[in-house]
């Protein structure tokens, strides 16, 4: 490589022979706003700024696709470093890169392979950045395996959206995979449904009751859970279990094997141990490729207007043939992020505030930990704080409420505002007693 990255020298003749067939003329389904030719090419290659969140299985694919598609100002955020187990699908990484930040290695690799593309990495959390950072992008693609991070970026982009200012509406393209299953979706703030609307569609992670794990184990999984949930904290006290650490997995495997032997249970293996504690279905290169390509294809169509974009959900399952389904996921009027209406919640008249809080943490459509609650209409005692997790003086002050019945604190039809550090927005609930 000659090291020159100036666009004129880098864009050799016919570099974009393939893509330009699409950009030089409209097709039958192209919107009339499409500006075929130089205008669209100039925007794509010189103006458009795109962010890829995640540089893992999906992120590696996304970065390569974006670079080849002609996006030249690409940013990438990832907080992880490269693990040996990533190499069978995260194709921008080599054994020598193990331990280095994914975002930095991926950016270097793509820039070297696709000359003239600038990839700016950020090794850290998406929450480190504020609205002014996200405001600079035209499109954001998310290739993450974390529900929490997706909720955060989804809520952040909705908070930024100002109907008066079209520039503030940032299309979010979200991809996800699990084994042979994958999905890609396009989220346009204030236009489509959002990530939060579909939260209850996620599969509930498999959990085993503690009493089964402790007293009546039957499956190898029960023995592994015993090792990780009960034995690890008992033996290692405050040391955190790192599911990427082979020594930790090895310890769990040995403990689980011994317990399985004691109960004549067969089937505890190292890979099952890893699978259970990581609570994930392993990702494979092919599904990642399908989903990442689908996300980048939508980004390309949105950036260029060369063809209509996905409205708004594509899912694919590859176990029995290729089955896919494209549909419009509808907005949820009581979505706490995009809906505007408060969520109706039925509450047992007998429930204490503590029982009510517990019920909130169990709900798949909320997914909250340690919520703090206040009421918009002052309670009977004239206070708005129902229960606060922090600071300590508020916690102390509100703790006695936990034992009170909710019906004595909030009237029928009253609203409760829920906040939590795991929740990037305020959740408003309207209470109905049953």
């Amino acid at each position, binding site marked *: *490589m000659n090291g020159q990255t100036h666009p004129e020298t880098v864009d*050799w*003749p*016919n570099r974009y*022979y*393939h*893509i330009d*067939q*699409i950009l030089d003329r*409209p*097709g*039958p*389904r192209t919107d009339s706003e499409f500006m075929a030719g130089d205008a669209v090419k100039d925007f794509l290659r010189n103006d458009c700024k795109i962010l890829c969140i995640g540089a893992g299985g999906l992120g590696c*694919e996304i970065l390569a*696709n974006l670079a*080849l*598609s002609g996006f030249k100002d690409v940013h990438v955020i990832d907080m992880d470093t490269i693990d*040996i*187990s990533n*190499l*069978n699908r995260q*194709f921008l990484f*080599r*054994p020598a890169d193990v331990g280095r930040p994914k975002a930095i290695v991926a950016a270097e690799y793509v820039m070297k*392979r696709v*000359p003239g593309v600038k990839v700016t990495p950020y090794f850290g959390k998406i929450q480190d950045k504020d609205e002014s950072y996200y405001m600079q992008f035209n499109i954001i693609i998310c290739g993450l395996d974390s529900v929490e991070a997706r909720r955060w970026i989804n809520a952040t982009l909705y908070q930024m959206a100002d109907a008066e200012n079209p520039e503030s509406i940032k299309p979010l393209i979200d991809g996800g995979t699990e*084994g042979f299953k994958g999905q*890609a979706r396009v989220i346009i703030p204030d236009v489509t449904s959002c990530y939060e609307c579909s939260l209850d569609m996620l599969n509930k992670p498999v959990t085993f009751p503690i009493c089964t794990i402790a007293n*009546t184990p*039957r*499956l190898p999984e029960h023995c592994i859970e015993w090792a990780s949930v009960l034995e690890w904290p008992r033996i290692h006290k405050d040391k955190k279990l790192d599911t990427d650490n*082979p020594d930790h997995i*090895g310890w769990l495997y040995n403990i689980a*094997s011994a317990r399985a032997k004691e109960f004549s249970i067969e089937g505890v293996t*190292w*890979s099952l141990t890893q*699978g259970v504690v990581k609570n994930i279905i*392993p990702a*494979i*290169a*092919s*599904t990642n*490729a*399908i*989903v*990442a*390509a*689908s996300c*980048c*294809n939508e980004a*390309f*169509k949105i950036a260029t207007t060369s*063809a209509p974009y*996905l409205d708004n959900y594509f899912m694919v399952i590859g*176990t*029995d*043939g*290729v089955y*896919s389904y*494209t549909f419009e996921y509808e907005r949820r009027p009581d979505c706490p992020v995009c809906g505007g209406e408060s969520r109706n919640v039925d509450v047992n008249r007998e429930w204490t505030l503590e029982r009510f809080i517990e019920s909130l943490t169990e709900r798949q459509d909320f997914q909250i930990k340690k919520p703090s609650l206040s009421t918009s209409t002052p309670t009977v005692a004239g206070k708005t704080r129902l229960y606060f997790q922090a600071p300590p003086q508020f916690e102390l002050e509100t703790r006695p409420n936990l034992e009170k019945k909710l019906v004595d604190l909030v009237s029928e039809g009253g609203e409760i505002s829920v906040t939590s550090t795991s929740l990037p927005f305020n959740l408003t609930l309207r209470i109905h007693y049953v």
Partner: protein
Amino acid sequence: MSPNQSQDSQDIETATTAILPSPLWAASGQAALESSRILVISASATSTSILKNLVLPGIGHFTILDPQVASHEDIGNNFFLEGLDSLGKPRAEEAVRLLCELNDSVEGKANLSSLEEVLEKDPTYLTSFTLIIAHNLKLPLLTKLSTFLWSKKHGPSLMIVRSAGFLAEFFIQFHEHTVVDSHSETAPSLRIDKPFKALHDHAVSINFDSLDDMEHGHVPYVVILVQAMENWKAKHGGPPQAYAEKQEFKKSVEAMRRKIDEENFDEAFAQAYRAWTPTTVPSDIAALFNDDALQQPLTSLPTHSAIFFHLVAALKKFTSESPYTLPLSSTLPDMKADTNSYIHLQTLYKQQAEVEKARFKSLIGPELVIDDDTIDEFVRNVHGLRLLRGKPFGAFDRDQAALVAALSATPKEVATHLALSALSVVLAQGSSKDVTAVRLRSEVNAITGPFEWPEDAELNLGNALGELARAPTAELPNTAALLGGLVAQEAIKIITRQYVPVKGYCVIDLIGSWTGTIDG
């Protein structure tokens, strides 16, 4: 330390140096991948995308057959070429070098001959591969290749991939494809309706009244249902038939409950239908018994399909004996129980499964020697067996009845497929400059013959033709990457003989963001 443990701890050590196999297709699937040899014709962006997703999980060997040198166009859209550094170099060699960097356990080779040469001078070279993948091959050459491979009944499967702009399709040519481990999500029968003797004896021996509360709440639901059904049959002479009787039976199960919070009784109540639903041979498995392959003398060649039919023949005999079911599965799903009752029940199922497997083995004909692992795998997955019979490439386009039927079932898929077929014809006759929507339309007419298109299909066809005329030779990076994922995934299914590959055409439209299949 048991042998199992030492094996596993060895895995942990090697894990730091080697790439771990995916647990999604188990060690047997990984072994099949590692011994596979793949030939990919052309080093296009689509081809290298497909290969990337095969090299990462660890195929044994691949060859790229391509005589061309990398052009300005190629280096602009292929991630496995190094920009201007690769310009003018053989693109097969460049791509092989860069693909091999992904996984040093994979062997890659560049063959700079042309396919014409190979077909002329040494066509048997082609049959040395497990699987052949061809992307955007010129039609006359593709026809030659597919005809040659179809003539070899046990030759490699051929995956034909075509793409232009946002539209694409692929077709897998095979005579037949048999799958033992389809990873079916259907649970095998627990035979609660016709319990084997040990299960029956165990279930009726339980005296619920003598159990303490803890024990009572931990009797597995299978045991509850077997006993409840035995009691019902003793009273009524047979299982419940009418809806009202079934409700009555459920009430009798509920009546055995001691406390409101006994989860094992919740399960028994919810699963009660299993007690009266007769366990029979599933219809798709029964259909295998009538397959043509079983009507002929079984071959003694140890091919996958010969072994498959050999075992199916034994299965047919097995199911014609009492209890007229598939061999029992040794896998017992989890259910509310204490450790001892669960392990005891699991042991009963395992022992009976062993007995039935032994009976099954005794029914296998002498023509072929089949190893125990293969038989074990067959019995373990017997409820999900699959047989796919394929057609030669192009047969669908020549079969007007099939076209008409498919067009009404899957209009946009068939319209897009025919548009791509027409594009192949036009590009074979001239250059991309000759491609217009009108020209393509007349080629579609030539394929289908006189034919009245339904309105919606006509609209789909117009869209597809217009899109192909817009970008007849465009290999978009995203289309290539998506095909890379889909085609590699199907290749893995073909090679591992696990999961179920596409039969017919898989059509992709990245404007509408949909995929669909045509059973053609």
